């Protein structure tokens, strides 16, 4: 059978004309016409083209990094891929996000969304990955998420850099009347060795456009890299230490108005009636606007400053019509408990062993545990906000988004317009963590802006609105059971996970026309696809709709199942009477699990695993493979007076190839603190149909005084490239819980751990 989907990426590399007669290099896609995002004149029959590098006559070199910069350094790393092949230093290039265009679709993001473990190289797995690539292109998923950006860009952006260099060299050879062998490239200029004369890339640009692009890509060997593989200064660093106006909340436009929203507690609850008298009496408030959209209903308040809008929203008297049956967290836990007793919705991975194997574990050899995690908010530092402006034919949106294409799609549907007439400018993001893959904040701004036209309106949510109207990390229960034989071997492992499905929640609010097909592997991510040599493995999902909007939260299902799986491995080791590290290594003997073994052994060495600790201290270990990166962590705690101090964390991550060690380690550090934060007290709970938590006083995250010392090392044993943004998160919480067990003998099976033990 032919390999499905390969042709979508075998679009051919081509050249175009950039502004002012310059050179643009990127990919032509010959399959499906995506409009050229940078070419205003869409000539009939012209091949769609998406440029990654543009060289103007004045030698300005612009690299398009069509992924959201939300702190993960992706603009720096994507630019480095082009700059490496183009032989220019990063300081010499301008990096831009570029327009929203389906041509910048992210294939790698969906590629890892298939129900096959990362290490599964079977034909079926390859086929599924290929077909998801087609889906990514079909949907025009210009998205940033799934720790997929560099994986997606690794080949295509280097090829764009190479192609530019190729045609510039040919043009230079003609210019100097010599052969390419006599030329040298450096810092955006080409020098003729014989004459010593130089010409800039910009001066060659118009000539280079006429050169045929290369038919064969001769990318540099990793050993020849000058930029890649080394830590680079972030391209946006200076803006971020000088208060630069780079976030969407900083957008300033002529005649701008300011607004906020007060939305129904959740999707499915509708606006019944309201009294706006008190709101309109507040000085500065101009209008109250009804919002009825696919993501929710509520009211918008327009004012001449944000504070007046906030006060106006507070003064609104609103009655909601709430038909939803699950009003309280207790009811939601019951729904999950009930789902666990029902037949599984689907299963993934596993060894295909007879069901009887899992039901006939002798009691003396059984180890069984139930784990729970709550809903979690993203709590990005920058609250949700967007600026929108309507004119006769276009809606413009300025916002920090991980998915500008989805904003185009949903906003255009709402107004029954062509998605090409929705113009999205992507700013830097004050944190994303998956929250900014949603479209609600942009959609509400667009709805309000309809009433303020032609004036733009910047719609900023209060922190309370942000916390209470998130698309939450799902709550879930993991019922795990295993068989540990007398020799200390884990012979059987049965994982039953009850959770709502993220995909079933996301699809109706983003792609209402498409029904999600097949199993939602996010329910079992971090459980079914972990490296583990156990004779009998079963991993089953029990999906239950809890009527709460849920979404992608840094590391998604891995944040749930990583905790379940790695807590359980620790419990099984305890049952076996084995050291948790030795126990793990004994169940990671397959060749393809070498990266896990090496990561665990390395992190053990770094942390002094096995050396004695004073009373009251303990170490815990965990390993999770997520987004293609094998990540092992050791957490050390001190427990004094029943109060936990997280003293130190050691981490080893193996993404196969490290493109920027500094940025990569920053991401792992951030992921660790993000993961630990949930243990310190984060939970979203429901009472009478509303979220109880509202601001950072009730939904906080780690602070400086709680932050552990962190040491990170990177390995490159994995045969395939993995991501950076998320893999640091999943192992940190179980490693912490395991450390608390080691220090105290107390096993905490539910998040936040702070419900059962105090933290400083």
């Amino acid at each position, binding site marked *: 059978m032919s390999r499905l989907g390969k042709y979508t990426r075998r679009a051919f590399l081509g050249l175009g004309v950039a502004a002012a007669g310059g050179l643009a290099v990127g990919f032509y896609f010959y399959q499906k016409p995506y409009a050229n995002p940078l070419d205003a004149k869409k000539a009939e029959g012209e091949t769609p083209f998406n440029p990654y590098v543009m060289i103007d006559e004045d030698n300005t070199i612009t690299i398009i990094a069509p992924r959201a910069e*939300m*702190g*993960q*350094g992706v603009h720096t790393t994507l630019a480095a891929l082009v700059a490496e092949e183009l032989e220019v230093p990063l300081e010499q290039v301008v990096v831009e996000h570029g327009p929203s265009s389906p041509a910048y679709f992210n294939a790698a993001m969906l590629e890892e969304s298939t129900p096959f473990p990362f290490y599964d190289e079977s034909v079926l797995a390859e086929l599924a990955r290929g077909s998801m690539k087609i889906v990514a292109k079909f949907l025009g998923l210009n998205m940033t998420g799934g720790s997929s950006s560099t994986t997606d860009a690794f080949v295509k952006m280097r090829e764009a850099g190479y192609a530019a260099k190729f045609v510039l060299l040919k043009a230079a050879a003609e210019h100097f009347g010599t052969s390419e062998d006599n030329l040298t490239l450096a810092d955006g200029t080409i020098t003729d060795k014989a004459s010593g004369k130089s010409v800039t890339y910009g001066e060659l640009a118009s000539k280079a456009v006429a050169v045929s692009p290369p038919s064969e890509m001769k990318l540099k060997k990793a050993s020849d890299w000058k930029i890649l593989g080394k830590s680079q*200064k*972030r391209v*946006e*660093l*200076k*803006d*971020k*230490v*000088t*208060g630069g*106006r*780079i*976030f969407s*909340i900083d957008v300033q436009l002529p005649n701008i108005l*300011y607004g906020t929203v007060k939305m129904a507690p959740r999707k499915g609850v509708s606006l019944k009636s309201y009294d706006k008298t008190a709101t309109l009496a507040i*000085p*500065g408030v101009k209008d109250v606007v009804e919002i009825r959209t696919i993501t929710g209903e509520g009211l918008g308040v327009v004012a001449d*400053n*944000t*504070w*007046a809008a*906030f006060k106006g929203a507070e003064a609104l008297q609103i009655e909601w019509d709430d038909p939803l049956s699950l009003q309280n967290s207790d009811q939601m836990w019951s729904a999950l408990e009930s789902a666990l007793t029902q037949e599984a919705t689907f299963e993934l991975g596993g060894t295909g062993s007879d069901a009887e194997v899992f039901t006939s574990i002798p009691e003396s050899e059984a180890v069984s545990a139930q784990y729970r995690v709550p809903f979690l908010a993203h*709590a*990005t*530092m*920058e*609250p949700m906000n967007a600026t929108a402006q309507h004119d006769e034919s276009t809606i413009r949106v300025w916002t920090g988004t991980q998915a500008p294409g989805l904003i185009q799609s949903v906003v255009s549907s709402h107004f029954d317009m062509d998605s090409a007439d929705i113009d999205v400018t992507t700013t*830097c993001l*004050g*944190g*994303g*963590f998956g929250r900014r893959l949603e479209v609600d904040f942009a959609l509400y701004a667009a709805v309000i802006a309809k009433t303020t036209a032609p004036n733009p309106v910047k719609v*900023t949510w*209060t*922190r309370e609105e942000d916390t209470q109207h998130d698309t939450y990390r799902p709550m879930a229960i993991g019922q795990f059971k295993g068989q540990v034989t007398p020799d200390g071997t884990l012979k059987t492992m049965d994982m039953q996970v009850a959770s709502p499905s993220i995909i079933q929640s996301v699809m109706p609010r983003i792609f209402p026309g498409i029904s999600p097909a097949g199993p939602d592997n996010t329910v079992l991510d971090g459980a079914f696809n972990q490296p583990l040599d156990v004779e009998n493995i079963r991993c089953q999902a029990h999906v239950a709709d809890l009527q709460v909007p849920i979404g992608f939260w840094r590391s998604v299902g891995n944040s749930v199942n990583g905790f379940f799986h790695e807590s359980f491995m620790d419990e099984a080791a305890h049952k076996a009477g084995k050291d948790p590290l030795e126990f793990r290594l004994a169940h990671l003997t397959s060749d393809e699990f070498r990266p896990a073994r090496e990561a665990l052994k390395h992190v053990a060495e770094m942390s002094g695993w096995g050396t004695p600790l004073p009373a009251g201290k303990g170490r815990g270990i965990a390993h999770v493979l997520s987004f293609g990166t094998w990540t092992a962590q050791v957490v050390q705690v001190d427990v004094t007076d029943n109060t936990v101090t997280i003293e130190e964390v050691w981490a080893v991550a193996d993404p196969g190839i490290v493109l920027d060690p*500094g940025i990569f380690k*920053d*991401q792992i*550090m*951030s992921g*660790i*603190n*993000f993961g630990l*934060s949930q243990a310190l007290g984060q939970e979203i709970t429901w009472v009478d149909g509303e979220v109880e938590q509202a*601001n*950072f*006083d009730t939904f*906080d*995250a*780690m*602070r*400086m*005084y709680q*932050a552990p*010392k*962190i040491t990170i090392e990177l390995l490159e044993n994995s045969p395939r490239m993995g991501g950076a943004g998320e893999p640091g998160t999943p192992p940190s919480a179980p490693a912490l819980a395991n450390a608390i067990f080691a220090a105290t003998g107390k096993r905490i099976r539910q998040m936040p751990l702070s419900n059962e033990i105090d933290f400083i």
Partner: protein
Amino acid sequence: MYPKIPLTVNGQKQEIEADPEMPLLWALRDIMDIKGPKFGCGIAACGACTVLIDGEAVRSCSQPVGEVEGEITTIEGISQGDELHAVQQAWMKHSVPQCGYCQSGQIMAAVALLEENPDPTDEDISDAMTNLCRCGTYPKIKAAIKDAAQTLGA
């Protein structure tokens, strides 16, 4: 209809017309178009809005603009022309920011800390730096403050 409120921001004297109860943050951002101080919570819980008033760190989201006494300094006012403040330079050197949204506030809190305590210990830093960072850049913030303390003390 609003009273005139005299303010000195980054050395510039000016008068704005605003409700005196409006938090300084929104007066800076929406009226004066000074965008360095960021909105994070509105209840002085996260510190993204931190500015200096007569050198002291103040959470501007909870400071009524009509009650401001003293000179206001925002992140836009701490560098000397093109030369960044030692704290900003240390932030660059250690590549502290990730998403960067909280960093204006972190930097202003660090500037205030070092003015009061030029040689802070780890504990002093943890006590003084209570601003929230969701990217978890705390280890780098700590290292950068120690670095800046050395530069300023030299």
